[in-house]
């Protein structure tokens, strides 16, 4: 057998696997999004209806728009806060003191926790009767005394954001520490001798050189924020009302709870579009050539 044929044969299993687990479901869901697609009907009745699912989402469903806004707000807040906090932490930890390796090990711990578990534990800690955080905030900020956080639309959203930031900061901090330590030390020292103090040094020399890594962090976190589901599902289940219902949660509810699998598929495809842009940008930054 010629090497040329052999090399294709060798990658074939992997290609088939990707096709069966990624490409085919994607195509199938696209097909579903153009049908009635009800889980409680036989396939013969799930006829093609064109763009009706899409127009329904856009024109007839305030809940869809609600989940879009929730997702966008959630993404904007979590991405910006996590990035800024992780950058601050990375700057504190990067120079390398004695504690560094120990702290780094501790840092990774929240990331080792399943988002669903983070959701459960935050729900527990914000329980109005025996929750630790509920009592804590109530004690230090009397405004919040006796407030049931998860019953208030704004505060429930805030709790989701807090849980998300808590879970994500460690990993992003580690990524940024890696980025910081790849900046040549001599450029920093040259700037110090040239006359740059703390803030200028950061703005003129550190930040521009960290930019590619920072971009990766922002894009990666945006992807994860946009598709948030498990944490919200366990923490608030989209409530109160639909105050914390993200798109993923909305898709889950329509598809698996209400059985409108065709409609859910169309909303899912609406979500795929920004995701494609983000993954493209991500790949561009990660595989960039210097």
């Amino acid at each position, binding site marked *: 057998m010629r090497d040329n044929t052999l090399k294709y044969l060798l990658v074939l299993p992997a290609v088939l696997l990707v096709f069966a687990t990624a490409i085919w479901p994607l195509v199938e869901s696209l097909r579903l999004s153009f049908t009635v697609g009800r889980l409680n009907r036989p396939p013969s009745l799930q006829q093609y209806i064109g763009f009706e699912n899409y127009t329904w989402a856009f024109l007839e469903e305030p809940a869809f728009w609600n989940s879009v806004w929730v997702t966008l707000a959630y993404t904007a807040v979590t991405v910006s806060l996590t990035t800024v906090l992780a950058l601050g932490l990375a700057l504190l930890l990067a120079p390398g003191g004695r504690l560094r390796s120990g702290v780094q090990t501790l840092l990774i711990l929240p990331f080792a926790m399943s988002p669903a578990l983070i959701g459960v534990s935050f729900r527990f800690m914000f329980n109005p009767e025996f929750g630790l955080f509920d009592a804590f905030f109530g004690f230090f900020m009397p405004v919040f005394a006796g407030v049931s956080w998860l019953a208030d639309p704004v505060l429930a959203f805030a709790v989701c954001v807090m849980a998300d930031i808590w879970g994500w900061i460690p990993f992003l901090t580690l990524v940024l520490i890696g980025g910081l330590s790849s900046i*040549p030390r*001599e*450029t920093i*020292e*040259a*700037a*110090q*001798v*040239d*006359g*740059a*103090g703390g803030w*200028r040094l950061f703005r*003129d*020399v550190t930040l*521009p*050189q960290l*930019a590619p890594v920072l971009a990766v962090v922002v894009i990666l976190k945006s992807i994860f924020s946009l598709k948030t589901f498990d944490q919200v599902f366990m923490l608030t289940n989209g409530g109160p009302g639909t105050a914390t219902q993200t798109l993923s949660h909305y898709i889950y509810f329509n598809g698996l709870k209400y059985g409108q699998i065709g409609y859910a598929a169309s909303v899912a495809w609406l979500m795929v579009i920004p995701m494609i842009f983000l993954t493209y940008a991500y790949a561009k930054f990660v595989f960039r050539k*210097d």
Partner: protein
Amino acid sequence: MAEVVLKNLTKRWGGFVGVDNQSLHIADKEFLVLLGPSGCGKTTTMRMIAGLEEPSSGEIWIGERMVNDDLPKDRDVAMVFQNYGLYPHMSVFDNIAYPLKVRGTPKADIAPRVRAAAEKVELTHLLDRRPKALSGGQRQRVALARAIVRTPQVFLMDEPLSNLDAKLRVSMRAELKHLSRELQITTIYVTHDQIEAMTLADRVAVMNHGVIQQLGTPDEIYNDPANLFVAGFIGSPAMNLIDGSIREGHFVTTGGTRLTAVRAADRARVVLGVRADDLRVSEPGEGDIDVPIYAFENTGEATLLTVQWGQQRVIARGDRHLRKEQNDIVGLSLNPDHLYLFDPDTGRRLTA
């Protein structure tokens, strides 16, 4: 422009002493080279002067000020790094302009001064490029221009030529020398290359194990080494160091060969130092001693003869037209005016 004074400067990391109680007075406008093998503390000394490393004890004075507690930016020094330390995200122009910009130089003054500095190092045609698009030599010029664009009190240069290839190093060395004579600014220059030290310095401080072994002009360092370390470190090929003793006013090798007369009292153990140039190569029988050739090397401008002298090997420099083969016997004689005697235990030079 200012003098730089180090008073009992020490740097310790845990139990390791990088720089040991070093005092040094560098005159205004002087070009001082810190020379030594890697790990001798020369770079650490310079980094402490720059403020990039904090001394464990001792004082650093630049001009009239003690700068121990000053940040690097407040010390008014300029530094050239071994790996250039250029800002990769800025153009050559912005790299050179950065020290001016960050120190609040009026905008109108920046461009002409950057151009003037770029002209001095012949960079004017590259000002729009990024460092990535430059060769090693060009990058080094940018680093140099960035240092001279201001008029700092002191220049600090940390092995600025080590990353260049051999040919470029020689031409950059000459440019550096020219530039330093023109600018007349106190310069401290770190290198492990003795040729750089010899050619550039007003004075050389030879360092080892965190201590200055000898401080003097290149002439003094070469012709009047203070101890075994300096003698062995300076010169290429290195000075021959031959073990032996002094008996009845003559040097006797450990093998028992009685050699030339030396002006020193008798000693049981002594090291004789002689440079390759001070060994005269002749036909067998015509020298002080006959020895077989271990290796014969022709460098073009001279010949190098490594000879097997009892247990030891000694290098002599021969005429460039000399032709010999391995295992040939040659006569060697020592120039009695340029012999150095050292105490093998302390390493100190024994003076007659």
